[in-house]
């Protein structure tokens, strides 16, 4: 059984067709990479999946239930977590409290005491343990990204939506984060990740979905996607990204050749 099925979802903002007829199935335990040029509708798809937006058409089936029209908190209770492209730390709360919010109100519905324990565990895992008592607003970008990650992990989600967790990180941080993602997957959590850092997303994804102007243009394993002319063409519309894409493909093939 699929943990998530998106069936023919369309979403419109005024005159803008943000998503049209997107369909994708995600089996449990998989990492799905979601890529596409800026404005392709990736984050919108996340927002539709976790109930922030209601699609005009289509269904989102999470754990066998159609969740269209359900509020985000309902999905959180059902075991869905996400991070945000632009980090949203709860600035005036401590790092630990931030993570406790995730643990307390997510699918586990833990008491404060348990949540605190889980929070410390998770902070250890994302290497923020020593900053637990700091205010979240005082962290740097990389730390904030890991905090977002910790917060959504603390909820013990079945499905985790990661929105550009690598953006803005330096290479060491990226490597760390990739390790964390891999580690999460071993805990039987399904992941969908939006990413622009190609080599990283290619490395960890089982399947990839490419969106362009709200339409799914390709679906397959990372190597299938890498060789799909439609994808390259889509990125060519956005020259800088196309360059990046090609450069990374080159790097990747170099790496595999070794």
């Amino acid at each position, binding site marked *: 059984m699929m943990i998530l099925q998106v069936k023919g979802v369309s979403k419109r903002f005024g005159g803008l067709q943000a998503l049209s007829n997107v369909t994708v199935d995600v089996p449990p335990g998989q990492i799905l990479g979601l890529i596409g040029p800026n404005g392709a509708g990736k984050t919108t798809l996340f927002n539709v999946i976790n109930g922030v937006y209601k699609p005009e058409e289509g269904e989102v089936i999470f754990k066998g239930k159609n969740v269209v029209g359900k509020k985000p*908190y309902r999905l*959180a209770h059902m075991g869905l977590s996400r991070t945000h492209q632009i980090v949203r730390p709860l600035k005036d709360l401590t790092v630990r409290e931030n993570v*406790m919010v*995730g643990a*307390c*109100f997510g699918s586990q519905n833990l008491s404060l*005491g*348990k949540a605190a324990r889980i929070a410390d565990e998770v902070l250890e895992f994302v290497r923020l343990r020593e900053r637990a008592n700091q205010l979240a607003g005082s962290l740097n970008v990389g730390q904030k990204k890991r905090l977002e990650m910790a917060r959504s992990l603390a909820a013990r989600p079945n499905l985790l939506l990661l929105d550009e967790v690598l953006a803005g990180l330096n290479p060491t941080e990226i490597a760390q984060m990739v390790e964390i993602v891999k580690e999460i997957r071993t805990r039987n959590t399904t992941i969908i990740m939006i990413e622009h850092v190609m080599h990283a997303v290619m490395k960890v994804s089982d399947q990839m979905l490419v969106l362009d102007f709200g339409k799914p243009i390709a679906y397959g394993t990372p190597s299938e996607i890498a060789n799909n002319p439609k994808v390259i063409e889509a990125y060519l519309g956005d020259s800088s990204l196309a360059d990046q894409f090609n450069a990374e493909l080159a790097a990747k093939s170099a790496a595999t050749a070794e």
Partner: protein
Amino acid sequence: MTTQGTDAKPQNELLNTLLDNFKIWTKKLSHPGLWITIVGVFILGYLPIADQSPEAAFANATARESTFTILMSIVLVSSLNILLGYTGYVSFGHIVFYGLGGYVGLYTIIEHQWPLWKAMAAGGAAAGVLALVLGSAILRLRGAYFALATIGINEAMRAFVSNYDPFGGAVGLSIHFRVYRETYGSYQDAFLVMYKAMLGLAIAAVVLSYLVKSSKFGLGLMAIREDEDASDIMGVIPYRSKIIAYMLSAILPGMVGVVFFFKASTIEPAAAFKLHTSIEWLVMIMLGGFGTIMGPVLGAYGYQNLRTILLTSEFFKNIQLAVAGLMLLGIILFIPAGLIGWLRRHISFTRRVLT
């Protein structure tokens, strides 16, 4: 029960949960800040009534009156802080609960000869119900729109009560002097009862705001304050939490209204729903530090004392409003976290003691 913990196996979930809860509550209730605040409020309130001899009662009469005002402010702003400080919703018209509570309470006292405690319960309940009804509607609004809606509601309520005959319309309600003598022996004795009730409410307000803040529910509120949408996504149910917070912040002010207007023996729409007073509450919270337990208490204490000084000093009497305005501006611009917030931020050891 802790001894049983020694052979507790990890899979013994129930015991673990109990242990967890026990630890949390011990930790919660042993926070020095809570006790400093409770003891402080109690001492503040007890001193003027400690010596009941007639001479002492006379000598302490002014202190009792001004302490009553301070205790009253402590209840009002600690309650408002649950909504403003924890949840981040600015209620400008919070006085509507105080006014409505006062009206309902005086109505029951005059029309049904209810004793004070029963009238207080009625006033608190009325405020709670009003908060539930209003909150369900206006808590959909965010930021300044919510603040404006609370102003609108207070004005609408004032205009309504001015026309509402059971509440005396524009003339208001008034209690006969005999009520105090017949029920309590004398106005002095009645005042003592009111004073103790207010002291009790003040301590209740401190405990309530502490319990809310240190609970899971409170954590949810603070998540809403920091980022309502993100908290929703993390599983906090914002709408429900906000309504509960709104109710919690309304009930005690409703009861305070009953006590205050019982003390004054008279209530009129203009006095019960005075927007300006409502804004003063915000000022007190800002002075002390919003979102903290001690902040509103200290803010109420400092602000009311300051007002007494300004009002009774020959020099400031005429421009006391302007001086208070300058102080407020100074606080907002330079110490926006308030006294407690500033201390907690800049002097690290205070974080363990102040809350």
